């Protein structure tokens, strides 16, 4: 039991389980999946579960970037929603101005702009040593105004078969395409972590800047790269968002998604102050958030009131993970192993003094 609780996936899986259990008890119809024709005549799968998977796509992609940033810099990027608005504005502007421009080119430029803004955040964080949440505050404030500046305050509507295929369904495939895009990004992220040093470097910089420098890493560059990767994620999310409806509303697109992405990272059992991370946890966390949202909406909670419920979830989660509460539980139920870990409070890593705990007990 103890080793199970130590598993990094313990928290996210339990949370997801609780949400599904809640639905089992209150509303079994939540799990129904049907297949029907949409208004264009394609067969598509419909149901709450499919809609959770579908609507979580953006969140999953952002959670990948947010996990890396959190790990390396010990802070979070709160500008992602605003940057999605910028990148979406760029994609929309290019597609609307010249009808001849193919969609991939527009998306390429959208991603490029998003990566440039990511690099801006990265420079502030890595070179000027500004806390990530404050550095990204700048674009959080300016992002949506910049987006409306790019589009001139207009939101034209684009109809394009490629956009429709990406945002909704490819004709003949009954599953919404954003699910595949998200799955592709997840696969890419896992491959990057498995076959490159990306994740390892991020973690070592996050655990200790100084130690990372001593082993020959360049902490500034590592942090900077995470923000550029986040820019790429933002560009892709903007692409999905634009193609879902063929337009954007710069004041509402991806609103509050930064909060959901941070919550996904926290829910994934990751420490929000950086260091070791679990990508699987964050991704399960992202789907859990969307499941919570869909569940609440299915129970006719007004969408404006959703944040209050999510806030309670965040507070409970971080309170459980807080050192003071952990110490309290250890003192009450921890036994000898618990006491052994107490030196961790004084700055040494827990578990570095094997045997001392047994002596104390």
């Amino acid at each position: 039991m103890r080793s199970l609780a130590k598993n990094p996936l313990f928290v996210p899986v339990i949370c997801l389980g609780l949400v599904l259990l809640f639905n089992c008890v209150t509303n079994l119809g939540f799990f129904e999946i049907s297949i029907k024709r949409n208004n264009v005549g394609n067969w598509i799968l419909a149901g709450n579960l499919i809609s959770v998977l579908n609507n979580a796509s953006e969140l999953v992609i952002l959670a990948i970037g947010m996990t890396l940033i959190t790990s390396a810099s010990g802070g979070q990027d709160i500008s992602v929603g605003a940057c999605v608005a910028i990148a979406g504005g760029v994609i929309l502007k290019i597609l609307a101005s010249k009808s001849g421009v193919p969609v991939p080119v527009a998306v390429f430029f959208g991603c490029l702009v998003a990566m440039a803004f990511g690099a801006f955040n990265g420079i502030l964080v890595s070179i000027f040593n500004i806390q990530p949440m404050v550095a990204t505050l700048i674009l959080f404030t300016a992002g949506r105004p910049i987006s409306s500046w790019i589009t001139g305050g207009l939101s034209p509507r684009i109809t394009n078969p490629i956009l429709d295929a990406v945002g909704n369904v490819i004709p003949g495939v009954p599953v919404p395409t954003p699910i595949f895009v998200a799955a592709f990004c997840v696969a890419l992220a896992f491959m990057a972590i498995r076959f490159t040093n990306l994740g390892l470097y991020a973690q070592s910089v996050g655990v200790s800047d100084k130690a990372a420098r001593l082993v020959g890493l360049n902490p500034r560059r590592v942090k900077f790269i995470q923000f550029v990767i986040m820019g790429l994620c933002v560009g892709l999310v903007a692409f999905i968002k634009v193609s879902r409806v063929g337009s954007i509303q710069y004041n509402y697109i991806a609103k509050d998604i930064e909060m959901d992405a941070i919550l996904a990272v926290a829910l994934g059992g990751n420490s929000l102050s950086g260091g070791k991370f679990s990508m699987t946890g964050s991704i399960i966390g992202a789907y859990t958030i969307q499941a919570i949202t869909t569940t609440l909406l299915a129970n006719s909670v007004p969408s404006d009131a959703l944040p209050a419920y999510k806030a309670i979830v965040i507070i409970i989660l971080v309170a459980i993970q807080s050192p003071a509460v952990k110490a309290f539980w250890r003192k009450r139920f921890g036994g000898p192993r618990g006491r052994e870990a107490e030196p961790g409070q004084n700055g040494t890593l827990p578990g570095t003094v094997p045997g001392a705990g047994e002596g104390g007990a």
Partner: protein
Amino acid sequence: MSFIGKDGRARGEPMSDTTFLLIITVVIFLAMYVSAAILFSGKGFAKPQMFFNLLNENAALIIISCGLSIVMIAGGIDISVGGMTALISVACVVHLNDMEGSGFLTSLLLALGIGLAFGLLQGYLVAYLDIQPFIVTLAGMFFARGQAAMIETQTRTVANESFSALAQARIRLPIGSMNNNGVFVQAYMELGVIIALVTVAALFVTLRWTTFGRSLYAVGGNKQSALMLGINVKRTKFLSHVLCGLLTGLGGFVFLLHVRSGAVTHAAGYEMDAIAASIIGGTMLTGGVGNIFGTFIGVLTKGAIGNIVRAMGLVGSWWPGITLAAMLCFFLILQSVITSRKRA
């Protein structure tokens, strides 16, 4: 204890960071305002009323920013202030409309109570459970807006005579200007401005000359050395959040006095405005450096940017946001350079 708050610098050194940043802020504000008055002479920048309108519009933001500055000086941050303001506006409007005619005092108590409740809870989570202030107050912001939506999703205006009378009270000043018809018009202030100015003065004195004020600087500057000086670090942090909550309660009430309506979407982006004002006013994000008077100037600078942008003929709704962000960026980099210069 005069050396505390200068971040460990010796007493003989010419200028502390607090003073240096404050001077930059004041100079920028004056330069901006005076050059605007000269460049756009037709737009009324030279009229006293223009300046007092800045105060009238930003009275609530001044009070809220002061609270935020206190938290930031103690090394924390609070982004729930905008959500709390919205919640207070909604709760007070519902209460005032139920009471008909009376209820002014009880609605003030309600506003302060909501602020205090948030301050106590967030302060406890940050100080005693050691959770990152950003995460705690992020949840606070979510919760406040969600709560406001649970109470009332529609915008509601105040229909309460005694409250409206107070909200419309104008304090005429002996200075003024000629209007187009050549009639002398006195400049006026709203009631909220008096509250804001008194708050700024009281907090200025508190931060400068009381033990609590000095310990805020000590805790924000260096937790470890504050602890060794015998300061109760946890309690100081806790109190900084409680004070910020109370001030947001007061600020929310002043906000309601100005707008006279309550809505979930009210005070959108207030947290960012307040943080920007504090930073522009010379409060360091790293803690231990800051000045309430600077915050006051910071809010005025933020308000003046909007006026100047409009006077320049940039009518797009996006310009105030972009210029404010550019300003924020400039001050953040300035702070970062100051910090790194000291470290070197």
